[in-house]
């Protein structure tokens, strides 16, 4: 059977099953608490499914495998290790956050610091960052579908837009149901792709021995040819120096630790014990999935040391599946990549909607808004935000993995200290939280404009985080003294 026709069959089957799984959420959703946190009722299995599916995005699937292909194992230090360390802080967060009756993360700022402004500012950061981050998922999906179904990229990204709209309109109940399907598909596709690569390279040892000899330019637009041995070197033989590699923790790692999409998974779990077990077990599952991605990325480079027809690292995986390790089951891998993009995008649109409708509109404009109007507003916002992301995806970023680290960095410089400081430090105060939020944000934007990564090998979230620390602690100590005296 023709390749495109086979893929179209898989695609159609996935669409039908996704429609079936998604429709249940519409009936269950009656108010904002249903819509955003599924009445704080999710059990362990569903929580793990939705946490893992939200985590494992197009950045994990295409960004990571492409970066491993181009730059080797340095990618693990640049992205994966920071993600897991961020998850460790999430365990700390879960131990305290569940005792607060909140629907959104910025609502905690309101409760802790008695500041509606800080809640609204948090909502605004969420809206902006998630609209930008969803571009990653739309681009990831678009590359895959246009490659496999042999259709135009623009048409492909309109398809993902419709998928994401549908699964998000039903709120977290819909998202959790479709995530359970999606994580199953992601695991199946990842295992299958790793198995096919491993079979063709002749095992892990042979793969590493051959990878050590590679000295080609991975694709024409890559900044440099790979030095022999660089794929297996922790710092890619100087291409990614230690300073840049380790400061990425301040973007990816701390950004994940303060990320509203994971905080919402914590609040939607039925209790603290479930939330903590969800994080621990999800990370173990993710570690196994990432081991598969390492094999896929490095093994693909061994099988095809250079790809002349692609323009970025994000296109490596679809190319390899379609041209290098093609089998009649490749459609499963196609569907798994789509599932990774959709399951993350719908969760993120949900969080973005909460930022707008709950943290900005209900908080500042109309605190007595009815449940019906709130749901209508959420769905209208999801439509508008999804459309903006779609339009921005027409001119996407070069690398999903680097771009994603920048976006997550905004959470580390704004949310991290007000959140963890508020939960674990009695002296944390409103003035310190607001000043560090603004200072960290300004510093990070300045560093991005100055290009600190290219000039000084520093991830821009690192100076941003230092500034937010330098403001938060002294300001809180200063304002604490007069209050203690009172």
């Amino acid at each position, binding site marked *: 059977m023709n390749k495109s026709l086979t893929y179209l069959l898989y695609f159609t089957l996935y669409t039908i099953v996704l429609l079936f799984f998604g429709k249940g959420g519409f009936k269950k959703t009656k108010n904002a608490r249903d819509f955003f946190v599924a009445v704080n009722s999710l059990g362990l299995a569903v929580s793990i499914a939705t946490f893992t599916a939200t985590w494992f995005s197009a950045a994990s699937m295409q960004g990571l495998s492409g970066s491993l292909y181009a730059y080797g194992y340095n990618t693990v230090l640049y992205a994966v290790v920071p993600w897991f360390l961020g998850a460790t802080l999430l*365990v700390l967060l879960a131990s305290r956050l569940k005792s607060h009756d909140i629907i959104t993360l910025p609502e905690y700022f309101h409760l802790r610091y008695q500041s509606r402004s800080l809640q609204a500012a948090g909502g605004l950061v969420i809206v902006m960052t998630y609209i930008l981050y969803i571009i990653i998922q739309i681009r990831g999906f678009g590359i895959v579908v246009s490659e496999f179904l042999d259709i135009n990229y623009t048409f492909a990204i309109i398809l993902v837009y419709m998928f994401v709209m549908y699964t998000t309109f039903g709120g977290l109940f819909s998202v959790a149901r479709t995530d359970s399907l999606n994580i199953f598909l992601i695991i199946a596709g990842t295992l299958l792709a790793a198995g096919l690569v491993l079979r063709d390279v002749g095992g892990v040892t042979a793969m590493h021995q051959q990878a050590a000899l590679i000295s080609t330019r991975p694709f024409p637009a890559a900044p440099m040819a790979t030095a022999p041995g660089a794929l297996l070197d922790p710092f890619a033989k100087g291409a990614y120096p230690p300073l840049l590699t380790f400061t990425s923790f301040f973007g990816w790692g701390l950004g994940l630790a303060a990320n509203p999409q994971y905080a919402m998974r914590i609040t939607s779990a039925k209790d603290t014990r479930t939330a903590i077990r969800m994080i621990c077990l999800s990370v173990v599952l993710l570690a196994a999935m990432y081991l598969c991605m390492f094999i896929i990325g490095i093994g693909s480079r061994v099988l095809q040391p250079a790809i002349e027809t692609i323009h970025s690292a994000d296109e490596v995986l679809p190319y390899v599946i379609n041209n290098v390790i093609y089998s009649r089951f490749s459609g499963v891998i196609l569907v798994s990549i789509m599932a990774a993009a959709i399951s993350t995008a719908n969760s993120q649109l949900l969080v973005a909607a909460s930022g707008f409708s709950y943290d900005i509109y209900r908080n500042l404009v109309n605190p007595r808004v009815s449940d019906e109007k709130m749901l209508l507003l959420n769905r209208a916002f999801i439509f508008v935000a999804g459309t903006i992301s779609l339009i921005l995806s027409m001119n996407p970023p070069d690398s999903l993995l680097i771009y994603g680290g920048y976006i997550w960095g905004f959470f580390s410089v704004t949310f991290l200290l007000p959140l963890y400081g508020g939960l674990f430090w009695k002296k944390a105060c409103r003035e310190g939280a607001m000043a560090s939020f603004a200072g960290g944000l300004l510093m990070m934007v300045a560093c991005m404009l100055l290009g600190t990564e290219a000039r000084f090998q520093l991830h821009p979230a690192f100076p941003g985080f230092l500034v937010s620390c330098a403001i938060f602690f002294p300001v809180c100590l200063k304002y604490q003294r007069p209050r203690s005296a009172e």
Partner: protein
Amino acid sequence: MIIIGTLLGLPYKTMGIIGGLFLLSAAAPTLMALILARQEEHKDE
């Protein structure tokens, strides 16, 4: 670790830094949860 490094065809430095940090970071959430559980037990006592 050295034997595994030889078996998998990876340089020891890579196995130590990448493999070690990967495993440690993957286990870190569980270690943190265990530490928190111990603290809770001590509080109860």
